[in-house]
């Protein structure tokens, strides 16, 4: 077993670890509203979402090998790694990818600890960008594309991040407002029951779309690492074990459930009722599907949060906790740069020590950071038992949505 093989193994394990955090970070996107309104019991919701993510991940047979090309220049346009990075058996590229993944996971865990729904795709791109800047300099990053299509950090990450929550919020607000207008005067037993079913259906659609969208990013990263180290040569396909393990990792992560984030999205932002839940999930599903059809890259997290916020704005007399919303937006803004800083730092540490030792050290740093954050989370545990408890932030002034929006 050569040094490169060991580093490759570390990259694969770390990538699957990222996929796992991607899963539990995003359970809330699909299921927070169904859990909050009681349409599904918490454990049933995460199980359903996990299964749909698993199915979704297997359905994503489209090759996502060039996923990193939108933001960093470590691959050629056909998906093979740049020759300069593989001259030493691939170690240079593997170190960039490993450092980037460590940055992504650390940031994902940190925002989970704070209960903030930050974007996993931003964390992944941020980590890779940071590690690439450290390893190859500023020119290694594809900032703006070549002007022929939507591309680069600006086109694929920043602009969609600014626009997608607004679009989703608008759609959900319009949907919620119409639903309440239409069902004025209908007895609650009809609306509650009916919209719960609508909610379960639309949330399932979001889960399925999430599996197809997000799992393939990790599949692409692992396959890139395999090609760089000479273990795989076919740029048109992904090894089956990569697909299966990524699908399992994201499904298990989803099933574990990021209860802290589910709580924030389901209870913290808006007091949600089932008609709002259905409007929010339908908006998310429609926006995610329409975007992927049009090649408009976006983060499911941003869409889901925008939708839930919109459903609060659209319901007459509903309350939106704008302070919680503000904290979320702040987390979105700093996700990419923060993951980039951690990714860059990891690359410098790995490069300083060099070779297998360097890779091992940053892997151990990851384990230590993850262990510390898990330990910290146990002090104020949030799980399926208390996820729906009343949200009380005594210092906060609640504003009716009508005046604040």
């Amino acid at each position, binding site marked *: 077993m050569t040094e490169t093989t060991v580093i490759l193994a570390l990259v694969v394990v770390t990538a699957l670890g990222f996929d796992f955090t991607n899963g539990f970070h995003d359970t809330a996107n699909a299921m927070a509203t169904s859990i909050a309104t009681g349409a599904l019991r918490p454990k049933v919701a995460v199980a359903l979402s996990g299964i749909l993510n698993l199915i979704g991940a297997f359905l994503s047979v489209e090759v996502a090998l060039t996923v990193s090309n939108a933001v960093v220049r470590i691959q050629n346009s056909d998906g093979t790694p740049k020759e300069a990075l593989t001259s030493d058996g691939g170690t240079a590229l593997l170190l960039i990818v490993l450092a980037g993944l460590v940055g992504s996971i650390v940031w994902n865990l940190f925002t989970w600890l704070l209960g903030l729904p930050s974007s996993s795709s931003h964390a992944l791109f941020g980590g890779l960008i940071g590690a690439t800047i450290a390893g190859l300099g500023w020119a290694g990053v594809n900032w703006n594309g070549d002007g022929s299509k939507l591309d680069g950090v600006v086109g694929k990450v920043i602009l969609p991040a600014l626009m997608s929550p607004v679009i989703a919020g608008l759609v959900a607000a319009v949907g919620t407002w119409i639903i309440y207008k239409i069902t004025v*005067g209908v*007895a609650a037993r009809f609306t509650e029951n009916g919209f719960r079913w609508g909610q379960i259906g639309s949330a399932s659609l979001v889960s399925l779309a999430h599996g197809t969208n997000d799992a393939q990013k990790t599949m692409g990263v692992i396959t890139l690492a395999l090609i760089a180290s000479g273990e795989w040569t076919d740029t048109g396909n992904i090894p089956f074990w990569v697909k299966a393990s990524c699908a399992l990792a994201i499904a298990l992560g989803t099933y574990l459930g990021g209860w802290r984030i589910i709580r924030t999205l389901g209870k913290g932002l808006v007091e949600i009722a089932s008609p709002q839940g259905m409007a929010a999930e339908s908006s998310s599903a429609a*926006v995610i599907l*329409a975007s992927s059809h049009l090649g408009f890259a976006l983060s499911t997290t941003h869409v889901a949060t925008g939708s839930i916020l919109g459903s609060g704005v659209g319901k007459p007399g509903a309350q939106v906790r704008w302070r919680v919303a503000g904290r979320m937006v702040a987390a979105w803004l700093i996700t990419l740069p923060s993951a980039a800083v951690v990714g860059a730092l990891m690359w410098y540490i790995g490069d300083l020590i060099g070779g297998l030792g360097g890779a091992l050290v940053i892997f151990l740093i990851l384990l230590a950071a993850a262990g510390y954050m898990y330990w910290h989370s146990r002090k104020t545990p949030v799980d399926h038992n208390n996820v729906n408890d009343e949200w009380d932030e005594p210092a906060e002034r609640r504003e009716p949505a009508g005046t604040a929006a």
Partner: protein
Amino acid sequence: MSNLGFALEGAWKVLLAGLILGAGLPALFAVGIRSMAFGAGGDAEVDHAPPHPIGRLVAYVLFTVVVFVALLGITFIVASGFGKTISFDHIYPTIVDK
């Protein structure tokens, strides 16, 4: 064209599709529920009108439409995974190569 131009071009299409499917379908569903209550009559609505059997029928038709479009959405996800897309060239949806 700049990135901003491309992004805005994509954004309004997503908004349009979002409003039709993401707000339109829930609205249709809401009409279905309203119609269901209209069909049941009595204390299902605040005006305590007598039952109207036609309401129930309309409700089931509307629910069927909503479920059909949602299934179309799932078909779209599955199809795009296999490099296919859904075409509406023949009015009714067909699965074609991308």
